[in-house]
């Protein structure tokens, strides 16, 4: 495995230019990319640092090539992410990245795309949706299957109309616990896979969500006839460096940060199913 060079752990600076409240515990932060940073690709992530608080890996959830503005969508899950709730526009953040391999969009050209996401798994796939919308003719049909715990947890609700206006798109939403206004599907996102009519030999599936959800989704897909080189998933592990050094993110021999976070299933399947690997 190839090792990248120069893995300085010192951050560059970036300024938050816009903060959007997504849900009760999720916000999106728009910021300008530091000059020396490459423009991230869909599925890559960055290490964001809050002064004196800590650093966390966050996927890029929106990319604007022209003005080098990118977005990160953060769920307040623990110590550092909790402090994100107080970050406002104008604030400075530390930035390192982009890191890892993103989604294999080049392979997916002319193929149908099946995006399966759960919870905070949608943000890393949002740039894929944007990409398909932008270069609509490059890709086949687009299926977006998205599940959240409750309707209140659905991210980017205001954007669903845009998604639906994409040609040849299907958007399927589901929640675990509906409220009285909810008229959509109820249940886990994997249930939606059965309903999709797609030719596995002409499609790619990109999955991102909690590991347990991904496992069920993969089983569905395999049953549907997907080959393991057509299924890509974005893994998550504890990360302290993002550059294959701190060791925490290993899954088997792979550093999720460096060799992933997006992996083709065949590549990791030897380890992926092993309990507590």
């Amino acid at each position: 495995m190839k090792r990248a060079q120069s893995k300085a752990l010192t951050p560059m600076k970036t300024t938050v230019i816009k903060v959007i409240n997504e849900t009760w515990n999720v916000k999106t932060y728009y910021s300008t990319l530091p000059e020396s940073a490459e423009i991230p690709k869909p599925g890559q992530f960055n290490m964001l640092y809050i002064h004196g608080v800590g650093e966390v890996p966050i996927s890029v959830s929106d990319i604007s090539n022209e003005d080098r503005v990118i977005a990160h969508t953060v769920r307040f899950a623990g110590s550092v992410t909790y402090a994100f709730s107080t970050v406002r526009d104008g604030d400075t953040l530390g930035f390192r990245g982009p890191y890892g391999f993103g989604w294999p969009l080049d392979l997916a050209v002319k193929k149908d795309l099946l995006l399966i996401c759960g919870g905070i798994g949608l943000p890393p796939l949002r740039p894929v949706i944007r990409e398909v919308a932008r270069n609509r003719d490059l890709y086949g049909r687009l299926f977006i299957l998205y599940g959240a715990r409750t309707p209140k947890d659905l991210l980017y609700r205001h954007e669903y109309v845009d998604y639906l206006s994409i040609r040849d798109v299907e958007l399927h939403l589901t929640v675990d616990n509906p409220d009285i206004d909810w008229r959509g599907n109820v249940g886990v996102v994997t249930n939606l896979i059965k309903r999709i009519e797609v030719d596995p030999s002409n499609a790619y599936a990109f999955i991102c969500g909690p590991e347990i959800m991904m496992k069920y989704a993969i089983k569905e897909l395999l049953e549907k006839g997907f080959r393991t080189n057509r299924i890509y998933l974005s893994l998550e592990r504890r990360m302290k460096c993002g550059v294959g050094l701190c060791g925490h993110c290993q899954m088997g021999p792979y550093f999720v940060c460096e060799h992933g976070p997006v992996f083709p299933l065949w590549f990791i399947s030897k380890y992926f199913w092993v309990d507590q690997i």
Partner: protein
Amino acid sequence: MSLTGLYIGHVNSLTLIFDQLKSLGYTVVGYRIIDKALRLDVLKTTEELARDVEDVQDPGKYSLIPGNFYRHGPDSPKKFLYPPKLLLFKVTPKWDVIINSEKYEGKLAFFGIKPCDLASIKVLDRVLTNVDELYTKVRERMAVVVENCTSSGNTCFCATMGTGPRARNSFDIAYTRLGSKLVIEAGSELGLRLINQLEVEPIDDNTYRDFEVTIRKAASRARANFEIDNLPELLELNIESKVYWEVIERCLGCSNCNMVCPTCFCFDVLDIPKIDGSAERVRVWDGCLNYTYAQVAGGHFRPDLWARYRHFVLHKFAYWIKQFGTFGCVGCGRCITWCPTGIDLRETVTKVLRGMAI
């Protein structure tokens, strides 16, 4: 690689080598007795080097007795090349990032470390060169004078791992003490320069025979009950082995094995806010046996100790090969000696393999 082949001299000339290193501006690090153990420490003179002792190492036990050959203590070169705590940078209240630059200074020489210690540096080279700044910088101007082992300890298995008891390459000087005789070879320009100042002559038949027998005897003891051929594959094939469950009946999850391991490189980063509004980020060693190692917000990838212990074993003997093209274990036995309950890694691996009934 040896540039000179073997020569003989007198053990007293070790002092000359030491003094030359000092005069060349090296900070010399070697084993010295502090409290009741051999510790790797900066030495001013050869007087400070440990002498006339032997370390008795057994699973979970360590002591020093009078003797004339010793191996090591809880420290390894990692302590100097990849320090336990390292300030990465400071951020002022106004958001100026001040990188800790003092960390790159000086020339370092290891004196009298053992072949397994040297091997551990070679492993770290694969992991850290051009990746970790401090390591890369220090490594560029570092010297190693290695002492071959004429007697191996009870927890040693360098011969199995192919790292000892004789160092084969990557040293500046390698020497072996045979009574008052010194068998010595140079492995670098610097080594040649150092030997050049000594009175040496090519090794004679008798001494060579003596040398060869001594090393062979040491090697025969420094063995585990397994072979490394196919080891990665065999361990991975038996990844579900119940042996890991058995082992953790004795395991405290205390991470001492990780901490004393000369190649364990995992770290955690601490954020230290200061009262003046500035902040520091500090890198500290972490280990895969530590509970929080694979814990994430709202979840845990290895909540059970057997899984963390398994990761340790597989990382050392299987994953490492894929990651860095070498084993992560050099057979120094530190994790066996310094385990408070004396868990024997050699036994674990042997049992896992035996469980496969091959």
